[in-house]
């Protein structure tokens, strides 16, 4: 038997969040005495997939049919279910994303499997199988027992830390996987794809610099962008800022926007409404810069500076460049 891990690809490489899922799946496999098998769908060189071995996988199934080049959650879920059946897997791991949830859901219905999305820790396997998940947008957690024979876990980012010691120099065997493709999965046609390819994706970014209404207007964003550049960070914003069209909607971080969990989140001129905090409470370290010492965000922060963002940001950028 095996634990099956689905990995997402970005330009032919396994995404960092998916490598975490591989490490997670390998740790689960260690507990259950199974092997960790990875499924990758889309175009990629074998050498780019072999590195899953470094994170504990013994085998990678690679489905590279041309029809699967464009992300298609329906067909991908079908492929996942077929891989599960081929490998006889009882535990399936995906990383939390729009695609991960969509595939987990459709595969769960196909396989009559229980699915828990938003898993935040390794499972407790002790006669029963229990997982911990984030609920109420990070305001709380639940321990949930999974009773179904086949179990699907959608794992949040930064759940396990990959240290240098975890990365072995083993490489996984890459096998071609040719799932049966169903016409029903290809009824939608893609009219257009717009990708902000030059920008770092918020969900993948390790550092995020984010701005709120305290930035005073879209024309004042440059100091924030400069700091982001110096730190190799992605830029985000609060809901009022995207509502006012100061910044594009896909930068909106919060309860009804994107939930992020970077190593470092720097909030500039964001007061910290509970809905915004809900989108960032998975961050490892939070820095808050605000002129109002009473801003509620300071209560959720690790480091705080009370002062004018337009004076502070250039100083930080300068210091970051000199690192």
């Amino acid at each position, binding site marked *: 038997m095996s634990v099956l891990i689905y990995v997402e690809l970005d330009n032919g490489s396994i995404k960092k969040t998916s490598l975490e899922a591989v490490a997670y799946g390998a740790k689960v496999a260690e507990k259950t005495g199974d092997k960790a098998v990875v499924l990758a769908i889309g175009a990629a060189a074998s050498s780019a997939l072999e590195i899953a071995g470094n994170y504990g996988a013994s085998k990678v199934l690679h489905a590279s049919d041309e029809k699967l080049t464009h992300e298609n*959650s*329906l067909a991908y*879920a079908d492929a996942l279910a077929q891989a599960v059946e081929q490998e006889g897997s009882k535990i399936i791991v995906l990383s939390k994303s*729009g*695609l991960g*949830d969509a595939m*987990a*859901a*459709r595969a*769960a*219905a196909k396989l*009559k499997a229980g*699915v*828990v999305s938003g898993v935040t820790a390794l499972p407790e396997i002790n006669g029963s199988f229990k997982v911990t998940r984030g*609920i*109420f*947008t990070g*305001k*709380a*957690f*639940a*321990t*949930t*027992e*999974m*009773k179904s024979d086949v179990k699907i876990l959608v794992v949040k980012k930064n759940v396990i830390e990959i240290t240098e010691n975890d990365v072995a120099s083993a490489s996984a065997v890459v096998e071609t996987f040719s799932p049966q493709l169903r016409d029903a999965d290809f*009824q*939608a046609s*893609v*009219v*257009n794809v*717009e*990708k*902000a*390819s030059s920008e770092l994706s918020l969900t993948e970014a390790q550092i995020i610099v984010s701005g709120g209404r305290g930035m005073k207007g879209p024309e004042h964003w440059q100091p924030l962008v400069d700091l982001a550049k110096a*730190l190799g960070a992605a830029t985000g914003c609060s809901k009022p800022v995207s509502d006012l069209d100061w910044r594009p*909607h*896909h930068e909106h971080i919060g*309860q*009804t926007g994107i939930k992020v969990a970077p190593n*470092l989140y720097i909030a500039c001129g964001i007061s910290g409404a*509970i*809905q915004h905090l*809900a989108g960032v*409470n998975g961050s490892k*370290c939070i*820095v808050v810069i605000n002129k109002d010492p009473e801003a509620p965000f*300071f209560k959720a922060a690790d*480091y*705080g*500076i*009370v*002062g004018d963002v337009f*004076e*502070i940001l250039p*100083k*930080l950028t300068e*210091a*970051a460049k000199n*690192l």
Partner: protein
Amino acid sequence: MKILVCISNVPDTTAKITFTDNDTRLNKNGIQYIIGPYDDYALARGVELKEQSGGTLTVLHVGEADADPQIRKALAIGADDAIRVNADPLDSYFVAVQIANVAKQNNYDLILMGRESIDYNSGVVHGLVGEMLGIGSYSPVMKLDIEGGSATISREIDGGKEILKAPLPLVLGCQEPIAEWKIPNMRGIMTARTKPLNVVEPVSVDEMTVPEKYFLPAPKGACKMIPAGEAETLIRLLRTEAKVL
């Protein structure tokens, strides 16, 4: 066109979450319940599509009677009738089976709901329902137009957006800016009182996952304040102390 909009009944986004009964139940004391914010977007777009092209809009909730005020609100916003599957659902799978069961009996062209409920944040119900019905499912949908039996969908993908054209029927998870939230007017509130709200019993589902215990995150340590005049020292602390640079 026959539209089904599925709504969740969730604590208000500003609610302070605590637990009771030895941490096995949410403490509902003093909590204001609302239609899930994402479901509210789905409902608003559903009402607009119905007004444009005619047809009917049914609102569906899987849950107990305490959700009835929120269901009446959905009727006041513009749904024609409502179905409540009377159950205390254990998980997404259970909810999806109930929705799929209602859908199988009624042949909807479009099934809309939020991208996720804001209590359990799973974001899997639309995918489960789509597969159970053998039809397409997409999420998160930010723009939706229907023309001649097919939908043009703009949805968010990692770091960008994708525009799809897909034949109906479909199940869609919605998010802003698909439509503006609608506030019921007086006439809507009056007519909602007499619109049908049918309560039906759930179909049985094998237990898949069972919540056991709830807990709150560990309290955050104190925030370390750095004087504005020494802002640049922050970068050094982030490297040497927090070890995040």
